[in-house]
């Protein structure tokens, strides 16, 4: 690690001033940024420690759920009303990282985490447009098993690793920042020819909180190869109202398949909760999939995961 300045701020105004400085980077739980520093992936000049700001609230009201940007993953996941009213969020959090990390990591930090693409994280100096703009993409011709099947570009095929973000998109959440309020589904951007930019946030812009409207029953399903401390090969969050075995309304989003949480934009109203009908209903959303040879399996896997998430008793803890 090289020398880096450190400033702990006491209020949001102070944070904003500091964060606006060139080379400044916000730090809260530090579970992601410290890794990026150690691996020399990020080399900020100043760390602005916002962990003492009063943004740790978890409130459930008639208009929905409000999460402060600094609420800890473990606290949100354990909150009884989150568990009962927004199970997809609690499940997505509990299936993330490890207990030690969840005790430190925050809501805002979780959304800001960066891809796990091995070339982005590699110790060697390898082409990676996300890490070194213009250097190329090693994954396209290399190991791209974990690569995106939607939304990738010739510059980058990395996926976004957050489980929480996928649940938030399915639950139609809004993200509040110091500059604006935007739908969770618009927070992360597609790589295009600028894959080094993961989100639409500007330099110095800070996430303040997350607002989730009252949600129909929801669930999060994560398919991964290890039972803990493991990112999704494919994940799916669903929020659905059903009656008599037929979907009335449903929203779903996929994780592990795109550079951002991928909304499953198909109308499922009126579709019976049966495998074949569901497969037929979601199939059009997969027509746009553009896998690489090694990530092709994700197309089938993702569709099966969606069917399973919808047909399992809603609210069941996401099993892997």
């Amino acid at each position, binding site marked *: 690690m090289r020398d880096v300045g450190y400033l702990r701020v006491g209020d949001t105004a102070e944070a904003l001033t500091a964060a606006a400085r060139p080379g400044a980077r916000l730090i809260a739980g530090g579970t992601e940024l410290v890794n990026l520093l150690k691996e020399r992936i990020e080399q900020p000049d100043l760390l602005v420690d916002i962990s003492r700001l009063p943004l740790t609230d978890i409130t459930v009201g008639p208009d929905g759920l409000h999460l402060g940007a600094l609420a800890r993953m473990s606290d949100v996941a354990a909150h009884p009303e989150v568990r009962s009213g927004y199970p997809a969020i609690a499940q997505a959090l509990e299936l993330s990282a*490890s207990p030690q990390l969840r005790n430190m990591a925050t809501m805002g930090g979780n959304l800001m985490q960066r891809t796990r693409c*091995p070339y982005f994280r590699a110790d*060697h*100096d390898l082409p990676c447009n996300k890490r070194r703009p213009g250097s190329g993409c090693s994954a396209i011709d*290399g190991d791209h098993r974990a690569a995106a099947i939607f939304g990738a570009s010739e510059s980058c095929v990395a996926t976004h690793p957050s489980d929480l973000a996928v649940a938030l998109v399915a639950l139609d959440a809004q993200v509040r920042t110091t500059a604006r309020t935007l739908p969770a589904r618009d927070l992360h951007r597609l790589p295009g020819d600028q894959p080094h930019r993961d989100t639409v946030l500007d330099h110095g812009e800070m996430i303040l909180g997350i607002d989730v409207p009252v949600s129909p029953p929801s669930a999060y399903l994560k398919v991964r*190869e290890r039972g803990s401390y493991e990112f999704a090969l494919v994940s799916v969050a669903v929020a659905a109202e059903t009656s008599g075995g037929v979907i009335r309304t449903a929203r779903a989003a996929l994780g592990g398949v795109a550079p951002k949480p991928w909304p499953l934009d198909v109308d499922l109203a009126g579709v019976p909760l049966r495998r074949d009908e569901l497969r037929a209903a979601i199939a059009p959303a997969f027509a746009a999939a553009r896998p690489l040879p090694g990530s092709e399996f994700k197309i*089938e896997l993702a569709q099966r*995961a969606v069917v399973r998430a919808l047909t399992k008793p809603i609210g069941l803890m996401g099993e892997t």
Partner: protein
Amino acid sequence: MSRLDAWAKASGEARYVADMVLPGMLHVALVRSAVQHGRVRRVDSEQARAVEGVVGVFTADDVNRNTYGRSVRDIPILAGEKVRFVGERVAVVVAESRRAAEAAAALVEVEYDDLPAVTSAEEAIAQGAPLVHDAPWEYAGAAISQEDGHNLQSRVTEGSLTEVEAALGGAEHVVDRTYSTSSGHQGYLEPQACVASVEDGRVRLWVTNKSPYRLRTQLADCLGLDPASIEIEPVLLGGDFGGKGSPMDAPLCVELSRLVGRPVKLVLRYVEDLTATNPRHPARIHVRVGCDREGRLTGMALRALLNGGAYGGFKPLADVNLHGIEDCAMAYRVPALFVESTIAYTNTVPRGHMRSPGAPQAIFAVESALDELAAEAGLDPVDLRRRNLPRTGEPSSHGTTWLEARGLETLEAAVKHARTEQPEVPPGWRHGEGVAVYVRGLPGPPVTSVRLVPAPEGRVRVEVPIPETGTGSHTMVRNRLAAELGIDPEQVEVVQVSTEELPIDPGVGGSRVTVGMSEALGRAAEAWRRGGGDEPVAVELRPGDSAASAPVVCYCAQVAQVAVDPVTGQVKVLEVLSSVDVGDIINPAAHQMQIDGGAVMGYGFACLEDLFEEDGQFWAANLGEFKIPSTNDLPRLRTVLVEGGQGVTSANVKPVGELANVPTAAAIANAVAAATGCRIRDLPITSEKVFWAIEEESAR
């Protein structure tokens, strides 16, 4: 009875090599090759030298040009005119702080002329392949000759292929299959580290090495020093699993301390451990095996081709091979057996030893092939094994007649207990059960030394030559000596002493510690009692001194229960039951830990672990990417001890450390095949391999 090292480790008081501080100590950072194979054209260290705190930047020109190794001495201290793998040491920075050393190392510019590279064993042995070493047979300790072919570290054959082919010609059923395994890492948590101090011609070393007496010889051989001038100090090791047996960076650190005239310290970053030390050999194993109408094996030919990486010097055996390959069929009666094990040089990280070297790869192949043969012959896989396990008094397939052959009992116990308690299978998932068997012989006759010294308040201090690697060996020593002397274990102090203090020991490894220490402690206790316990007693077991080398083997049979999700291909290992052939057990908790830890390691090898090798380098740069099992993944572990076995030494022991990790992968692969009808012959068994196999099967 708690473990001696438990409190220090749990409280953080334990001190490892990385914690060592000596007065005036400098820090070392390595500059590693960025290319697989290339001539070093230029090393520009000007910018690095200008970094504040840098004491020196050194290349091969500055250090001893002799090569080193555990058996074949083919490893340069720093790469000279050419580099042979990504990660090889090319230059080194010594500085006042680790930070300065690392910052400067990043500024060293190395220019290479790329050479054509070979990254797989198959490529390496092909006609006309680029040469990793021009004349590998010229290295001291080389196990091959010029006539053997190019890019070979070693080739070992046993038996006659002609006889096997004749036997298979008359067989009722024959299967012919190829299996492969990936590169894995030992996964110890403590990084490789070395502190070296050279002062007035005396060398002192604190190093993450489990074979200090051998290390002393290896250093002396390489650096042309008198072994008596080298002292390896006692250390606590934070895990080994086979990865801490080589000199690694010790010769370099000795040279650096000599050059700068101050002690130096090198602690690898874990990414260096994962990508540039001495991980497990990936293997491609071809098995041809046949049986008669009754399911009796008639012949087996196994040919293994292993990727040994750029250097063979991290393997300790004189044949530079892995005996686990040679012993692949020892569990059964095989009338005609041919085994060939070839290890190739490639432009990849040098491979070394990992827990029961070669056996996990070979047994995965053999035990998978036996299930495939059983299917071919229409036999139950357990039945096929029953018909081929030798009984006491019969010679094994390798010709030895053991004191006892308890394979059948061990297998029956495994199957009986596995079937009394079936695990719960998630709805919609398919269940499968798989069996695999492994047998392991004893290490050679014990060679070691210990000393008992009277300590205050009637206590006994036992000085041992081996470090505690994390297995509980020092606790075993305490318990064993207390039992021999009939005293309270609390009255026994166990200390590792430096190489100055005791004469001989081959180090931890080869499952030899409990056997060797039991023998030495038995003799020491006898002398102690004779002498009344007033005087120190030293015992030295030299080669040929000991009777503790009876033809004793230990069987381990495992039954794996898996559930496979036909929708995603996900494999859940529900249970691994280990049935283990044992003698007497000195410390039941430590013994059980070896079995449980073994099964977990076997599970990781089967289902998860892969360093993601591509273009000769590894992509798994940390323990998030290199997936060893987490607690959440663990199958239920059950153990059945098949007691009453005849062991060795006055303690009647059998080794257990390299047993339960071996058959697990085949047991799991066999269970997956039973659940799905799909045979995965390439480890690890990932969900997508299973997914596609199921897809193909259902498309058929």
